[in-house]
């Protein structure tokens, strides 16, 4: 395949051209309640072409092999148009020419497991949840996504890599009369099928929390000091800080770019943030990004000081900073954009009990329920929580959404726990879906968060 791609881009009148071909194989088994809603395995494929010519940069994606020639024409024309319209002048940071083939190393290859076995496992976990008190229904899916990626560029790089993620994820819904409460659940990863086995306790626990939420009180809106659970810390780290560490987000906004200058002291001394997609067995793991660059660990913030940023080759050159290998596409329908892989706040020294004591009065908020950013403003939901009084956990609360400003909040993180949990499932929607966006951290204590309530 690599040789075929090399032939396709040979002799093109441009300073740089690359092409990526992908085959994406998906297996999906979806339950709603006890009923199977969808089951099957499917395969799709396609091509992405990128051209750099006289400082103009443009991309085109096509499905069919016979359209690749047209894709190259469109990308060349696009690059020329950028120049003619006095658009952004692009250059690529130099990187080593790479020739590599990365094979999967899995603890249990899901492709060798019959679909009936996957169905039985998902059905068993689904039944466990449905058997718990007050549970009305579930939406639970087994999802297996494999990508065979083939990348070639005009500098001589030729890389192929397989990545494969599996998960069983969804929600469990409890009901009493007209009141409905749901809790999300996900297990999985990028290191094989065996991770999905023997997880009964997770599903039972999540279903029971959904049932208990029927008796929880809606949180009252206002400003609180809060402790975030490790996965909620991860949501904050990803949503509020992480996206601002993606060079393409701030690149064209001069004032924000200035605020995010390396060396700026933005957080408290307790905060160190790492993006590291080289950690094995995490869902964010990969070797090469979608422009053939080997991914590197990056310390984004070191004890409150901004020290690193996530880059593509183009943004690395524009910022005069090192290439990090974070240019990643959802699949063959998309050009790569800058994405986080595994991002987390580094654990500190405080136990959870220490944090509760320091909090005194406030809220303990647990597990993420989606988040969104717009520039420096962020919001994210917590699945449930507890009121804390005198450092002791009190009544359960629900309907929790938090809003804040990145720069203010980083200055309000006053303590960091000594634990670390990283999510088993990704799902960031920055224009494209990134199922490999692992996030996590320890428990953290934050002052003055605005909580929406209902």
């Amino acid at each position, binding site marked *: 395949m690599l040789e075929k791609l090399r032939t396709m881009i040979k002799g093109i009148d441009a300073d740089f051209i690359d092409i990526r071909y992908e085959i994406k194989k998906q297996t999906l088994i979806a339950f709603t309640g006890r009923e199977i809603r969808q089951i099957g*395995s499917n395969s799709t*494929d396609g091509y992405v072409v990128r051209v750099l010519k006289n400082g103009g940069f443009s991309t085109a*994606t096509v499905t069919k092999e016979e359209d690749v020639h047209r894709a190259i024409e469109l990308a060349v024309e696009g690059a020329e148009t950028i120049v003619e319209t006095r658009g952004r002048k692009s250059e690529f940071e130099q990187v080593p020419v790479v020739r590599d083939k990365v094979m999967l190393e899995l603890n249990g290859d899901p492709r060798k497991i019959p679909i009936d076995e996957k169905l039985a496992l998902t059905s068993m976990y689904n039944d466990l949840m449905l058997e718990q008190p007050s549970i009305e229904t579930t939406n639970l899916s087994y999802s297996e996504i494999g990508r065979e990626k083939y990348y070639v560029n005009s500098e001589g790089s030729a890389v192929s890599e397989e990545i494969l993620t599996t998960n069983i994820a969804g929600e469990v*819904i409890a009901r009493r009369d*007209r009141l409905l409460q749901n809790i999300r659940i996900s297990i999985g990863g990028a290191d094989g099928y065996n991770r999905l086995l023997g997880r009964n306790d997770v599903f039972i626990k999540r279903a029971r929390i959904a049932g208990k939420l029927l008796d929880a009180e809606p949180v009252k809106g206002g400003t609180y000091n809060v402790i975030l659970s490790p996965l909620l810390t991860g949501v904050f780290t990803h949503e509020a800080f992480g996206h601002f560490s993606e060079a393409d987000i701030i690149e*064209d906004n001069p004032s924000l770019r200035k605020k995010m200058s390396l060396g700026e002291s933005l957080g408290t001394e307790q905060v160190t943030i790492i993006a590291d997609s080289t950690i094995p067995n995490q869902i964010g793991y990969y070797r090469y990004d979608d422009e053939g660059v080997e991914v590197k660990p990056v310390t984004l913030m070191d004890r409150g000081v901004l020290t690193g940023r996530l880059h593509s080759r183009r943004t690395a050159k524009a910022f005069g900073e090192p290439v990090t290998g974070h240019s990643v596409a959802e699949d063959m329908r998309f*050009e790569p954009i800058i994405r986080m892989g595994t991002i987390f706040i580094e654990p500190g020294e405080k136990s959870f009990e220490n944090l509760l004591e320091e909090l005194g009065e406030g809220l303990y908020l647990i597990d993420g329920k989606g988040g*969104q950013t717009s520039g420096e403003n962020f*919001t994210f939901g917590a699945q449930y929580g507890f009121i804390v009084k005198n450092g002791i956990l009190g009544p359960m609360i629900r309907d929790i*959404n938090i809003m804040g400003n990145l720069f203010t909040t980083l200055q309000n993180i006053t303590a960091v726990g000594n634990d670390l949990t990283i999510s088993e499932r990704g799902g960031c929607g920055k224009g494209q879906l990134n199922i490999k966006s692992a996030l996590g951290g320890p428990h953290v204590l934050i002052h003055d968060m605005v909580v929406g309530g209902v």
Partner: protein
Amino acid sequence: MKKLLETASKVSEQAEVYSIRTDSSALEMRNGTPTDLSASIQSGFAIRLLKDGRIGTAYTKNLLDREELVENALDSLKGNVKAGFSFPASVDIPGSQAPDDSIAEMGYHDLHKHSERVLDHLKGKIEGQIDVHSGRGITDLEIINTSGLDVSSKTSFMYTFTSLLFPNTETSVHKIFLSRKPADFPKGELDNLMNMYNAGLPEVEISTGRMKVVFMPDAMYTLIWRLSAAASGKSFYNKVSPLQNRRGEQIVSEKFSLYGDPTDPDDVSQTYFDDEGVPTGKNTIIDKGVFKNIILNLDYAEKLNEKPAGNGFRGGMWGGETISLLPAPSLHCCRISPGSISLEEMIASIDKGVIILGVLGAHSGNILNGDFSVGLNPGYYVENGEIRGRVKDGMAAGNAYEILMNIEHVENTLHDSITGGKYPAILINNVNVAAKD
């Protein structure tokens, strides 16, 4: 396609083939400079087989091996997914509006000219950054089945999305302009956007409390997602809808009517058939506050013993590859009926309140229950009928059914929204607003 249907029909009782081809391009201009130009030509095929009361599905993008695609659907059929419905027979469907050929002929320079004209009009009038994104596309769609259905459409669209960013932030006021043929963003609408932007330049702090709230069209999806999820046939079938057994009941204010109308000739998404080939039409969900109809595709219509109304579309809350998504109950070309007063009159009537121009986190509340808790992005504070500025760190929260009982006014004009659909602004009394006290 016909050969694929023939192959599929040999191994099933009923079969359906769906195909889609899109050809699109887009230009992003940030801070007045062209930054990204991209093109995309994508195709895909999806099949559904019915046999022994079960359904099997499969899809691919490159139809290189028909037998393999059918084999995948047969494997899926073994999964015992129950389906009691039949594929619709051929019906007379009005011809869709012919696509505008000039959209197909539009080049990158044409997109640039449309964006440049927006920038020219706003030049020197905006304190902050101006971003303009424009794009065009052609979609070819065809559905055939063994009941004799053979429908197709070719549609064209272009859009221009203008964002005015507040100084030193990424927070913006924005508006999308959609058209079936090449057209400039109307200057009057740009002026309205500019006036709204200027009113929000001062940043103000407010106190937590209950107050009047205006949901602007781009914030309306917060409520629409919740109402659509509750009215979906899927929620009814699984007995998790708060609207269960409430058909004919007053569920929100009589000032509120919600419907879908995919036949609206003014909508770029106009279609006379859904993604299952069922004819579309105006479908009223809430009429003057009374819950009228469930949103149904073929599958849930059969399961609930209802009549399908052309609401089966391949799509989802998070997008995704069209062919990989099964037709699901969906309110296409969604509308809220207009009221009687202008936005200016509405704002003038507010003693103390917040205008929500955009939201963050609409997806993260308890959607089925109708609960929401969203960041104001941005939200404007209004006092004595005048906008005082944009709110610093504010949230609005509540339950869609409860707050929609308290509608004071509905605007007399519908506007395109960034998430699709056309909505008026709605003024609601007594909504919980949280702020940094």
